[in-house]
């Protein structure tokens, strides 16, 4: 009985392993209805597509000078679940999408666009425009630089060691931005905490907003920044002395140094805390341990 089942399973599963050469500048496009897209990099100018899938699914790899397009055909049964392991040159731009799909990328050094509905997006690397979106999964990005756009609906967003302009938005989840080198960062959520540990550059713009959550934001000691704090039902405190100006019922401001950068922190129903870089991350670690 067990032998029969094993044999049937072996018949039902199929493996595809194809390698195609690519020209410099070509883009990888993968669409996978369900399963996983895992992309890693190598030094060769070629794309290797390994896929585990049902024998009913046919993997199509269409390569041209401009792109390598990977998709599947499920025939009359519709699209199935496919796990892709794809190896690409480090310079290759990636455009990955799915519905019930987890997306993982490691080692990319060019643009990355990843979108899924039910699945997690985890990217290590990326340069230029990096746009990651999931409706029901978390979005995690590490070691990327450029124009960063992170979007979820029902899960958290985490970004670490990022350099560049950052936009992060979710509805029901926290946003954690650590080791950030940015002159332009915006993060907002409705139901979740926001943590930012990074630079405040002269003439930079930073905006952090949540409806129901706490904000922990780092302000370097030598920052030149005008800070605007708004909270309706929360407390404010700082790890360093501040002299409040422009104080109204739910809003106040203060200036550090020349005030050339602008920092806006807003929480309708949560506390706001400003600390020095490193202290914010420490608080975050403490909270996770608790």
């Amino acid at each position, binding site marked *: 009985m067990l032998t029969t089942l094993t044999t049937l399973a072996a018949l039902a599963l199929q493996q595809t392993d194809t390698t195609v050469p690519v020209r410099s500048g070509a883009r990888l496009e993968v669409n996978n209805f369900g399963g996983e897209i895992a992309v890693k990099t190598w030094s060769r100018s070629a794309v290797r597509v390994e896929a585990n899938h049902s024998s009913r699914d046919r993997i199509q790899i269409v390569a041209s000078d401009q792109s390598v397009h990977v998709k599947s055909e499920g025939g009359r049964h519709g699209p199935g679940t496919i796990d892709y392991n794809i190896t690409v040159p480090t310079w290759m731009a990636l455009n990955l999408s799915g519905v019930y799909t987890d997306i993982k990328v490691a080692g990319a050094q060019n643009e990355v666009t990843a979108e899924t*509905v039910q699945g997690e997006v985890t990217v290590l690397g990326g340069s230029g425009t990096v746009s990651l979106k999931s409706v*029901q999964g978390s979005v995690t990005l590490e070691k990327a630089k450029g*124009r960063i756009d992170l979007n979820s*609906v029902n899960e958290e967003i985490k970004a670490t060691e990022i350099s560049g302009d950052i936009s992060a938005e979710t509805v029901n989840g926290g946003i954690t931005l650590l080791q950030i080198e940015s002159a332009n960062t915006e993060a*907002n959520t*409705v*139901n979740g905490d926001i943590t930012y540990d990074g630079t405040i550059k002269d003439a930079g713009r930073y905006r952090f907003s949540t*409806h129901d959550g706490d904000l922990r934001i780092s302000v370097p000691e030598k920052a030149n920044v005008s800070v605007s704090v*708004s909270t309706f039902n929360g407390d404010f405190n700082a790890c360093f002395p501040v002299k409040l100006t422009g104080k109204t019922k739910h809003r106040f401001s203060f200036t550090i140094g020349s005030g050339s950068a602008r920092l806006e922190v807003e929480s*309708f129903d949560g506390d706001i805390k400003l600390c020095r870089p490193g202290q914010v991350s420490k608080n975050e670690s403490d909270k996770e341990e608790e």
Partner: protein
Amino acid sequence: MKDQWTDRLSEYLDGELGAAERAALEGHLATCGECGATLAELRRVVARAGALDDRPPTADLWPAIAEHIGVVSLPARRARRRIVFTVPQLAAASVALALVSSATAWLLIRAGARAPVAEAPTPAPSAPATPATAAMYPDKRYAAQVADLERALERGRGQLDTTTVRVIEKNLRIINRAIREAQSALAADPANSYLNLHLAQEMRRKLELLRQAAALAGARS
């Protein structure tokens, strides 16, 4: 990530941009796939909205969505069936809200609290606008756009996974709660600029989630 043209697309669609801005935007559209996609989405929503009957949304499908979107009359819907809604407009609406009395804000909340959506009498077109009407007017447009998106979503809802639908409904409830809380706070402190902007932000977010959900449903149908 939004660029400087994202919020101008609806004006472009309605022919409200000047010649120079129109030319600049068209130049931008030639190179920006994201703006092109957004514009196409807006066109689809407008086309869908134009083809729809003026029936209220089916009550059993999106009760959570219908909650707190305000009261819209049939003539207003017909007159305003177009996609014009930007953050600056919302902010302007919020500032207008701040100018009216607490009583008006209280009325706004009460009107918003009625669910499901009901038809309400509106002043005759020739009637002079009262401050309250002027303040409410942008909110009606907003409600009309939310309703249009709900209908687009409604048509494609069957294409969405039930889990996805649950998640969208859950997150709409979260946003609706935030909107209600902001409105309630604003009623007590109508001149508070933070609360006005916060309300505008939550309303924008609701519209974006509905757009995203409608696009998902449309893509799968």
